[in-house]
C-alpha cells in the first residue's frame, strides 16, 4: 500500500510507524539491523568482481571479519569499474547512475551506481524526512495529499534529484514547479520559478540547500509584494487577506514582510554545510523549525533531525553500515598516511567526541568501508527527551583536505593552486581557511604572500581577489553563483608578508597544511 493510499484512508498511526518507527529502536535492535544488512551486502559483494577485489577473494563470516579484512577505501579504489560503468563487476545491476563532483579526481565527476534496493530504501527515507519535517511531536504530522512541495535542490543526475523521482506515484504532492516540465532549465531559474509559484498558490513543504533557504527568506520582502500583487486575482482569498495584514504592518509598524506572514509552511527541510548557524533565522522567517538532513551521492541520504529538530540528527539504520574513526585515530593518519585507523561502531561512541564517518552501502551498493571525509560530532548517545535510544549527531564539516562552502562549492589545494597559476599573478605561498562573517555566512579566506620576484610591484588584496575570482571560474568554481546565492562575497584575500609561511615552517620544523591549517596558526602568521 502506497503512502497515498494510507493517507487517503487516514491511517496516520500506521504511516508514522512504517516510516518513522525506526526512532523507537533500541540500540541493540539498531545494531542488529546494521549487522544483518551488512551480512546481506557481504553476500552480494562476494558474488561480484568488485566485492571479491575489496574482500580479497574471501567471504567474511561476520561483521568483525569484514572489518578486519576489508581496507578503508576511497573513490580511487572503485574508479576503474565505476567510471567505465562496468555493470558486470557490480553486486547488483544499477537502475540509475548518480553523479557528483570529484574534487582533485582524475575526472570532474564521480559516477555512483544506485540499485533498485537502494532506491526503495531512499524512498522510505525521504518519506520519513518529510513526515518528520511536518511533525511537531512524536507520532503526529501534517503531511497530506496534494500538499505543495517546493524543491530547491539539484535535479538528476545529482542525488537530490531523486527526491521527486522516488515520490512520484507514492504520494500525490504538487512539485513547484513540476520537474517534468522544467527539464533543461537552470538550477536558479527553476528555484525562482518554484518560489514564485509557491508565493501565489502556497507552499506546504520547502526543501532546499540551507544557503538557498536563507537567501529566499531575505529576498522575500522585495519580491513578495510584486509577485502577490501581480497575481492578486489568482491568489486564494486567504493569501490576499494575509498580504493585506502584512502590508498594514509594514506601513504602520515598518515591519518587513516575512514568508511566514503569507505562507503557512508545514515543514522546512534544509541540507548543506554551514546552514546550521542559520537555523534560528530560518525559523524566524518561515515560522517553522527547520529540519536538517544529511546525505551524499555515495551513501545517499543517511541522516535527519527528528520531530523536535534540536537534539541532533539520527543516522537511518537501513541505508549504510556505519563505522566511525575517532579524532585521535585521524590525527595518527594525518601524521602517517599509511596508518590504518581503527574504527568504532555506533554502540561504541562517546558523547561529545568527533568522528569521521566510514560507511558501507547496503542493498547492492558499490562502496565498502568508504571514506568520504564526512565529520560528525556525537551529540548524545541517547536522548531521553525525545525517547531516542541511539546516538544523535551534528554534521561538522568535511575533512580538512576540502573546504566546503554552503554545500555548493568544494575547494581543494589543487583548485586554488590552479586558479593562482592561471591568473599569472606573481604570488607566493598561501594558506586557505573557511571562515564565517557576522551573518554566519561562510567564505573562503585566502592568506597569500607575494612572490619573491614581485616585491618591486606590490598588488593590493582587492586586485588579487578580483583576478582570482575570474580564474576560479575556469576551475569549476562559479563564484558569482555562490555570491548570488549567499548574498555575500565568498572570497576574501589577506596579504601576508613575504616568507612568513616558510619562516613559520622552519621555526616549527613542520610543513604547514595549505587547506584549513590548525587553529591558531593564522594569528601567528599575521603577527
Amino acid at each position: 500500500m502506497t503512502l497515498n493510499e494510507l493517507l487517503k484512508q487516514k491511517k496516520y498511526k500506521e504511516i508514522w510507524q512504517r516510516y518513522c518507527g525506526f526512532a523507537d529502536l533500541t540500540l541493540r535492535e539498531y545494531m542488529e539491523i546494521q549487522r544483518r544488512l551488512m551480512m546481506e551486502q557481504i553476500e552480494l559483494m562476494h558474488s561480484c568482481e568488485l566485492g571479491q577485489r575489496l574482500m580479497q577473494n574471501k567471504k567474511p563470516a561476520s561483521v568483525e571479519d569484514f572489518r578486519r579484512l576489508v581496507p578503508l577505501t576511497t573513490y580511487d579504489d572503485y574508479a576503474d569499474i565505476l567510471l567505465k560503468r562496468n555493470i558486470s563487476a557490480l553486486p547488483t545491476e544499477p537502475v540509475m547512475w548518480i553523479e557528483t563532483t570529484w574534487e582533485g579526481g582524475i575526472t570532474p565527476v564521480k559516477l555512483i551506481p544506485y540499485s533498485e534496493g537502494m532506491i526503495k530504501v531512499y524512498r522510505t527515507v525521504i518519506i520519513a524526512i518529510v513526515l518528520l519535517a511536518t511533525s511537531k511531536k512524536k507520532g503526529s504530522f501534517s503531511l497530506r495529499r496534494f500538499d505543495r512541495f517546493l524543491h530547491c535542490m539539484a535535479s538528476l543526475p545529482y542525488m537530490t534529484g531523486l527526491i521527486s523521482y522516488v515520490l512520484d506515484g507514492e504520494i500525490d504532492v504538487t512539485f513547484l514547479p513540476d520537474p517534468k516540465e522544467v527539464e533543461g532549465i537552470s538550477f536558479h531559474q527553476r528555484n525562482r520559478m518554484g518560489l514564485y509559484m509557491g508565493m501565489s498558490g502556497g507552499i506546504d513543504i520547502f526543501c532546499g540547500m540551507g544557503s538557498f533557504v536563507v537567501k529566499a527568506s531575505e529576498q522575500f520582502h522585495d519580491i513578495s509584494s510584486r509577485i502577490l500583487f501581480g497575481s492578486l486575482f489568482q491568489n486564494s482569498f486567504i493569501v490576499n487577506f494575509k498580504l493585506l495584514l502584512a502590508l498594514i504592518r509594514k506601513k504602520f509598524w515598518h515591519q518587513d514582510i516575512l514568508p511566514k506572514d503569507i505562507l503557512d509552511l508545514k515543514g522546512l527541510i534544509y541540507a548543506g554545510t554551514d546552514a546550521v548557524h542559520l537555523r534560528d533565522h530560518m525559523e524566524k522567517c518561515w515560522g517553522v523549525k527547520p529540519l536538517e538532513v544529511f546525505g551524499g551521492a555515495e551513501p545517499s541520504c543517511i541522516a535527519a533531525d527528528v520531530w523536535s529538530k534540536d537534539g541532533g540528527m539520527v543516522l537511518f539504520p537501513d541505508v549504510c553500515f556505519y563505522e566511525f574513526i575517532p579524532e585521535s585515530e585521524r590525527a595518527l593518519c594525518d601524521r602517517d598516511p599509511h596508518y590504518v585507523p581503527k574504527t568504532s561502531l555506533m554502540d561504541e561512541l562517546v558523547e561529545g567526541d568527533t568522528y569521521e564517518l566510514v560507511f558501507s552501502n547496503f542493498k547492492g551498493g558499490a562502496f565498502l568501508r568508504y571514506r568520504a571525509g564526512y565529520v560528525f560530532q556525537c551529540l548524545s548517545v541517547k536522548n531521553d527527551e525525545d525517547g531516542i535510544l541511539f546516538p544523535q549527531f551534528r554534521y561538522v564539516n568535511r575533512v580538512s583536505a576540502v573546504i566546503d562552502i554552503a554545500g555548493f562549492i568544494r575547494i581543494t589545494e589543487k583548485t586554488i593552486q590552479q586558479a593562482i597559476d592561471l591568473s599569472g599573478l606573481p604570488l607566493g605561498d598561501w594558506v586557505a581557511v573557511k571562515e564565517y562573517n557576522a551573518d554566519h555566512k561562510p567564505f573562503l579566506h585566502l592568506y597569500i604572500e607575494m612572490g619573491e620576484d614581485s616585491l618591486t610591484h606590490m598588488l593590493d588584496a582587492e586586485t588579487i581577489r578580483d583576478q582570482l575570482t575570474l580564474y576560479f571560474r575556469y576551475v569549476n568554481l562559479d563564484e558569482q553563483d555562490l555570491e548570488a546565492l549567499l548574498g555575500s562575497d565568498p572570497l576574501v584575500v589577506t596579504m601576508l608578508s613575504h616568507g612568513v609561511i616558510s619562516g613559520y615552517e622552519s621555526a616549527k620544523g613542520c610543513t604547514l597544511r595549505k587547506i584549513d591549517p590548525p587553529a591558531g596558526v593564522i594569528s601567528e602568521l599575521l603577527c
Partner: protein
Amino acid sequence: MLDFFIWLIHSVSLISYSFLLVVFAFSKKDKLVKIAILMVALYMIWTTASLFMRFDLPPGTLFWNRIMAAAIIFLPLIVYHFMALFSDFHSHLLKYIGYIGTAVSLILNFTGQMFSQVTVQMIPQMVDGRLVPAHYFDVKWEWGVVFAFMYAVILLAIGFAYCLKVLEKTLKADGIKAIIAGNVIIVAAIILMALPWLNQYSLGVLAGVINAVCIMISIYKYRMLEFKFVFKKGAALLFCMGLLVLGYIYLSLTLDETLKMYVIPAVTALSICGVYSLYVKFNRDIDKIFISTEYQQRQWLFGFSVNLANKLELDEITDTFLEAVKSVLRVSHVFLALYDRDNDTYTLSAGALEVAGRGYVFAGDNPMATWLNDNNTCLTRDHIRTLPIFKALWDSEMECIDDMDLELAVPLKSRSHLIGMLILSKKQDGSTFTIEDMDLLLSLGGSTAVALDNAFSYERAKSEANTDSLTGLFNHRHFYRELRQQIQEVGENPLSLVLLDLDMFKLYNDMYGHVEGDKALETVAAILKAQVGDCGVAARYGGEEFVIILPFYDSERAEMLTEKIRQAVQRTFHGGPGDAHRFLSISAGICTYPQAAPNGEELLQRADIALYSAKNSGKNTVVIYGPNMTYAPSMTDVPVVPGHLEAIGDLRLPSALGESISHSSAIFALTATIETKDYYTYGHSQKVAEYASVLAAGIGLDDWHVKAIMEAALLHDIGKIGIPEDILKKVGRLTEDELEIMRRHVDMSVTIIKHLPTLQYVLPAVIGHHENWDGTGYPRNIRGEEIPISARCLAISDSFDAMTSTRPYRSGCSLDHALRELQEKSGTQFDPHLVDAFVELTQLKRISLTPLQ
C-alpha cells in the same frame, strides 16, 4: 389499506435504520462510521417524527412536523460530509452554503416560517366496499419550498462533482453509486411530498427505506467494516426490535386512546425485559446458524490437536496439520518452516516449491523468527510492513514473503524454543484473519509444536539408531538392511559393494592417540559422503572399515569412484609438512552383484576377499574381486599381542619373537647405511639400544617389547642419513637453521621405516624419542604419558649416551654427572619414573658406560 401501507412503510423503515445503527455501533469507529451513524439517526428521527405526527401524539402534529423537518434540514450537510469522505470531493463553497443554509432553515423551521400550519384531516376512503377514514395532511409551505430547492441544489452539486471525478478516473464508481441513487430518490421524494395528493403516502419515509438499503449495499461494497460479524449481531437485535415494533403497532391500532396512554408504556417496559432474554437466546442460535460449519471444523481441529500428540512421524504430522489448517481456515496456501538445528535455518516445507518454484530457507536469526520467539503471538503482514525491526530483512527474504503471499505467521514453540513457523497466505475469500482465527492458530500451534518436538526427538533417536555417532555415516546394522533393500530394488541391474579399510590405522592411533584417530575417521567419512553423495550408501562397517553400496554401478564405475576416494584420502593424509604428521591411506576391495556374487552375503564376503588382496598388494590400492581370489593372510596384518599391551599402550609386535628376529637383517642393513655416513651415529645407536633394552626390561616389560625397543633404538636415528654431512659432523654449536634441519631426521626416520611394513611397530618409539615430558619437544609437542613408553625409554637412553660419549671436539662426561643431568631434567624433559629406574639400574650396575664395540 392506506393506513396499512403507511404502517408498513414506517415499520420497515424503522427496522432498517435500527439494523444499520446496530451495524455501525458494533463497527470500529472512524470518521466515516461516525458520520454514517449521525446520518442514520437523522433518518430515524425523520421516520419517528413522521409516525408520531400521523398519530397526532402530543404535543401535536405541528411539533412533530417541525422535528421531522429539522431532521430533513440537517440531512444535506451530513450527506455532503459522508459523500466527501467517500469520494474525496471537497468544496468549501458548498460547505459554507450548507452551514448557512442549514442554520437559516432551522431558524425558519422553528419560528414557523417554513411550515406555518399542519393539520390532520380524516378523509373517507372506500375499502372493501365500505367507507373508512384515512389520514391526510394539510401543510402550508412557506419557505419550505426554498429549503427543498437548496436541498436539491446541494445534492445535485455533489452528484455532478462525483460524475466529474468518475469521468476523470480519479474515483472508482464502485461503492458509491448506490448512495448517490439513494439520495436522488430522497430528493425526488421530498419534492413530490410538496404535492398534496401524494403527501398522504409518506413518500419521504419510503425513500428513506430505499436509501437505507442503498447505504447497506455501499458499505458492503466498500468493506468499511466487518460486515459479516456485525450482521450476525445485528440480525439478532433486528429480530427482537421487529417484535417490539410490531407489538407496538398492534397495540396502537387495537387499543382506544385512553388505554394507549397506560397500556403502551407498561407493555413496552415488559417487552424490553422479555425481548432481551429472547435476544440472548436468538443471538446464540444465529451464531450457530452462521458459523455451524466453521464451528464443527474448529471442534474437529481441537480434536485433531489432541490426536497429534500420539503421532510420531514428522511427515505425517506436518502434512495432516497443514491440510487441516488450510481447509478449516480456507487459506490459499499454508507453509511450515521448521528449524534445522545443524544449519541454524528455518527450511520451508515442500509446498513452497510448488507455489514459488523454489525452496526457501530463512536464516536462524531472521527478524520473523526473532519476533515470533520474543512475542509468542501471531505475526501479521502489517507487522512486517510497519515494525522497524523488519528493516533487517534481506531482499531475498522479503521476496520469499511476497512469493508466499504471507498474511500471517504463527509461532510453533516447544520448551521455550521456536521450532517452527506456520505461514499462511490470504484466505480464499479475501477476508482478513480474525482474532478468533489467531487464537485458534496459536492454540493449535502450541499443541502441534509439542507433537513436532516429539517427532524430532523420535527422528533423532531413529537416526541415531541407524547412524554411527562418530562419523555420521550409517552404521553396520543399517548397512545390512540397506543392502538387502538395494539388491531387491536393482533387480538384474548391477550393484557394486566397496569395502574400505584404513591402512596402518592402528599405528596411527598409537602415534597420535585416539582423539586424533577419531578425527581421522571423521575426515575419511566426510570424504566418503562428499564423493558418494546420493549415488549410493556409505556406512561404517566397524573399526576403521567402511562400506559403500553403489546401486547401478558396474565394477569399472565403482573402481573409478573408489580410486577417487583413495586419492582424496592420500591427498588429505600425505599433505602435511612431514611424514611424522600424517601417513594414512586406504585399501579397497570391490565386488559387483549379480556378475560376481549371486546374493548379498556372497557379495560382502567377496568384497572382503578383494580387500585382503589389496592389503597384500602393498596397501593404498583398489582391487576388484576376481574369480581366482581367495583369502591369503597379509604379511602386515599383525595381531595384537595380549598381556602387557594395555600397560604399554603403544606397541604392536609380531606374534612371534622369531618373526621379529627375522627382521634383524633388515635392521642391521639399515644401521650399516648410517655407519657409512657417520660412524658416531652408528655406535651411538648400538649403545642406546643396549641402555634402552636394559631399562625396558628393568621396568618390567616382556621380552617381545624389550626386543622391539632395542630395534627401535637401533633405527631411531636412521633419518640422519638424509642430513648433510657438514651439519652432521659439524664441530661446535649448530645454528638455528642447522638445528631445524637436524630436527628433520625424525621425519626422515619415519619415512624410511614406513616403507618397511614389517618394521612399523618401531615407529612410535622412533617418532617420539625427541618429545619432552613437559610437551616442549618435537615433532608433535605431545606431553606426559601421551608419549609412548618406548619413546620415553629411548629419550633417556639417547641423552645419557650423548652426554657420556666422547666426540672429536669434546670428552664424554662422567657417569655421575650424566645421572645428575638426567635427574635435573626429570619431570621436564624426561619421565621422572623412568629416570628413577634408570638411576637405580646404574646403581645396580646393570647399566654402565659401554665402550664402543
